[in-house]
C-alpha cells in the first residue's frame, strides 16, 4: 500500500464518507431515478433533496450531542426537549399568530432545558446520563402539560416555511442546519474553544489544572445542545404542521448518538468531528430511505441501526481490534511479535 493511500485510509472522515457513498450507490442501482435532480416550482426536487431536508433536524440535534459527548457528557433528553419546544411553539403560534414570538419562546424554553441539564451535571455533580434521564422522564409529561394532552395542529402558513420552505433552491431546514454547523466550526477553530472542549474530554482534571474553565464551558455545551434540540423541534413541528407531545422526536436521542458515533466522534470524549456528525446524520437518513425504496418493511430499520451501532462500537474498541489482529496474524507472526516485544517488556 502506498503512503498516499494509507494516509487517505486513516483520514477521520474516510469511513463515514465511504459508508454514505456505498449507500447512495446501492440506492442508485436499485432505483435508477434516485440521483435525478429536477428544478420544479423554483427549487430543486428529488430524492437527494428529500434526504437533505429530512436529515436536517437530526443533524442539528446530533451537532449539539457531539459537543456534549466530546466534553465527556451525554444528553439523552433531546427527544423530550424537541417535544417541549414543539409544544411551546405550537401554543405560542395559536395564541399570538406571530412567527417571531413562537421561535423566541420555543428556543428560550429549549435553552432553559439544556441549561438545567448542564447545572445538574456541573453544579450538582450527577452523572450525565442520570442528570438528563430526569428531563427525559419528565419532559414528555411537561410537553403534554403544555399542549393539554392534545395534538396541537398549527394553521399558520408562515410557520410552514421552517420545515417545508426553500432558500436558494434548497430546503430551508437543510440550509439552516448547514449554517449552524459551519458557524459552530468557525467558532471552534477561530477561538480556542474547540481545543478547550478536547482538553476537557481527554482529561477533565488536567484541563482544569491547566486553567481551562471547564464548568462554564460544559454548562454552555449542554445549553447549546438544548438549543439545537429546540431548533429541531421547530423544524419537525413545522414539517408535520402539528405538535405531538407523545411522538415528536421519539428515539431521536438514540439516532443522534448513532450519528455522532458514525461520524467518528469517540464516545469516551476528546475526539470529535462536526462534519463527521453531519455525514452520520445523512447516513442514517439515507439508510431509512434505502429501506423504504427496497420494499423492506420500515420497521427493520431499527435492526439495521443496531447492527451499525454494534459494528462501529466494536471497531472503536481497542480490545476488539487487538483480538482481530491476533486472529488475522498467523501463529508464526505472533511468536515473532512476542520475541520482538520480549526484551523491551
Amino acid at each position: 500500500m502506498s503512503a498516499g493511500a494509507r494516509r487517505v485510509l486513516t483520514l477521520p472522515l474516510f469511513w463515514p464518507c465511504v459508508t454514505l457513498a456505498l449507500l447512495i450507490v446501492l440506492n442508485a442501482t436499485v432505483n435508477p431515478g434516485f440521483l435525478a435532480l429536477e428544478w420544479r416550482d423554483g427549487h430543486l426536487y428529488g430524492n437527494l433533496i428529500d434526504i437533505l431536508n429530512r436529515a436536517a433536524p437530526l443533524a442539528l440535534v446530533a451537532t449539539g450531542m457531539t459537543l456534549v459527548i466530546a466534553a465527556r457528557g451525554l444528553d439523552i433528553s433531546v427527544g423530550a426537549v424537541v417535544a417541549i419546544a414543539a409544544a411551546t411553539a405550537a401554543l405560542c403560534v395559536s395564541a399570538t399568530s406571530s412567527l417571531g414570538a413562537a421561535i423566541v419562546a420555543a428556543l428560550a424554553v429549549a435553552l432553559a432545558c439544556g441549561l438545567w441539564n448542564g447545572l445538574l451535571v456541573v453544579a450538582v455533580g450527577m452523572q450525565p446520563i442520570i442528570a438528563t434521564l430526569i428531563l427525559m422522564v419528565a419532559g414528555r409529561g411537561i410537553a403534554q402539560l403544555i399542549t393539554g394532552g392534545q395534538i396541537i395542529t398549527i394553521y399558520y402558513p408562515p410557520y410552514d416555511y421552517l420545515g417545508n420552505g426553500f432558500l436558494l433552491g434548497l430546503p430551508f431546514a437543510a440550509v439552516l442546519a448547514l449554517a449552524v454547523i459551519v458557524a459552530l466550526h468557525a467558532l471552534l477553530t477561530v477561538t480556542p474553544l474547540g481545543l478547550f472542549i478536547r482538553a476537557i474530554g481527554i482529561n477533565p482534571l488536567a484541563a482544569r489544572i491547566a486553567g481551562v474553565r471547564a464548568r462554564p464551558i460544559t454548562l454552555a455545551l449542554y445549553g447549546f445542545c438544548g438549543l439545537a434540540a429546540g431548533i429541531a423541534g421547530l423544524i419537525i413541528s413545522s414539517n408535520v404542521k402539528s405538535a405531538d407531545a407523545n411522538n415528536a422526536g421519539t428515539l431521536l436521542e438514540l439516532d443522534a448518538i448513532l450519528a455522532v458515533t458514525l461520524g467518528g466522534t469517540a464516545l469516551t470524549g476528546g475526539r470529535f468531528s462536526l462534519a463527521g456528525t453531519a455525514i452520520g446524520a445523512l447516513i442514517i437518513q439515507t439508510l431509512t430511505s434505502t429501506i423504504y425504496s427496497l420494499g423492506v418493511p420500515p420497521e427493520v430499520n431499527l435492526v439495521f441501526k443496531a447492527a451499525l451501532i454494534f459494528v462501529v462500537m466494536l471497531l472503536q474498541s481497542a480490545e476488539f481490534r487487538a483480538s482481530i489482529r491476533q486472529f488475522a496474524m498467523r501463529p508464526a507472526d505472533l511468536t515473532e511479535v512476542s520475541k520482538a516485544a520480549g526484551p523491551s517488556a
Partner: protein
Amino acid sequence: MSAITLPAFDRRLVPLSGTLLLFFAMVAFGALAYDGFLAPQVFLNLAIDNAFLLIAAIGMTFVILTGGIDLSVGSVLALTTMAAAALIEHAQMSPLLVIPLLLAGGAVFGALQGFLIHRYRLQPFIVTLAGMFVARGLCYLIDTESIPVRDPLFVSLAEMRIPLGQSSLSSGAAIAIVTVAAALWLAHATRFGRTVYAIGGNARSAALMGLPVGGTLVGVYALSGFCAALAGITMTVYMLSGYSLHAVGLELDAIAAVVIGGTLLTGGVGYVTGTVVGVLILGIIQTLVIFDGTLSSWWTRIVVGILLFLFCVAQRLIEGRAQKMKNERRPPA
C-alpha cells in the same frame, strides 16, 4: 473516645429509610385525602398492576449494583410477549415449551450484551441501547399488529385469583413475589450476590481479590435479560396479547424505581428491598392520580421526574458526606 465518630445507624440504610418514609407519607396523604384509599385491595392492586415492572426492576437492580445499566429491558419484554403470542397462536407450540424457551432466550440475549460489555470494554449504556433497537426491531419483524393470546393455559393464568382474606392477588403478582424472594436470596446469601456488590464497590479491587468479575458481569446482564423475559411472560398473561408497542419506556420506569429505591447509580450500594419500595412508590403515584380523578395522567411522569431529581440530589449529598468523613478519618500525614 473514638467510637463517637461512628453513627449508630448504618449509613448505607439512609437512602432506603428515606424511600420507606416517602412511601408511608404518600399512603398517609392518600388515606387523609381520599375515602377507601386504605382498602387492602388498593395495595394488592399495586402488586398486580406493577408485577412486570417489579420483575424487570429487580434484574435492573443487580445491573445497577455493578455500576452498569440495561436499557434493553423494555424491548426484551415486548419481544417476549410478541414471540410468546406468535409461537403459541401462529406456530401452535405448547406454552409449556414456549415459556422456558423464551426465558432462556432472554437470558442468552442479556448474556451476549454482558459479554460485549465485559470482553470488549464497551459502555453498558451503548451496548444495551443497541440491544434495545435489536429487540424492538425483531418485534416489528414478527408482526406490527397486536396478536391476541387465547391459549387456555394463559387464559386460566390470567383469570386465576389467589384469595387473601376478602381480597385477592393475581398469578402475575405471585410470580413477582417469588422473584423478589429469589432475588433477596441471590443478593444477600450467595457468592454471586457478594461479587456483584464487590464489583460495584470497585471492579479492579474485586478482580485483584480473585473474584470472577467477568463471569459475574455476564451473569448480571443474563439475569436482567431473564427477568425482562419473565416480566414479558407476566405481561402476556396480564394483557393476553403480544404487541410490539408493549412496555415502551419501561426501562426508564425500572431505572427510576431502582434509583428511588435508594440504589446508588455508581454501584455497590443498594438493596432489592429498596427497589420493591421504589416500584410501590411509582404505583402509589399512579393510584393517587387515579383517586384524584381530576389530574391528568401526564402528572405521573412529571412527579416521577421530580422524585428522580430529589433522590439523585440526595444521593450526591450522601456521597459527598461519605467522602468528607473518609477524609476526616484519614490519619494526618
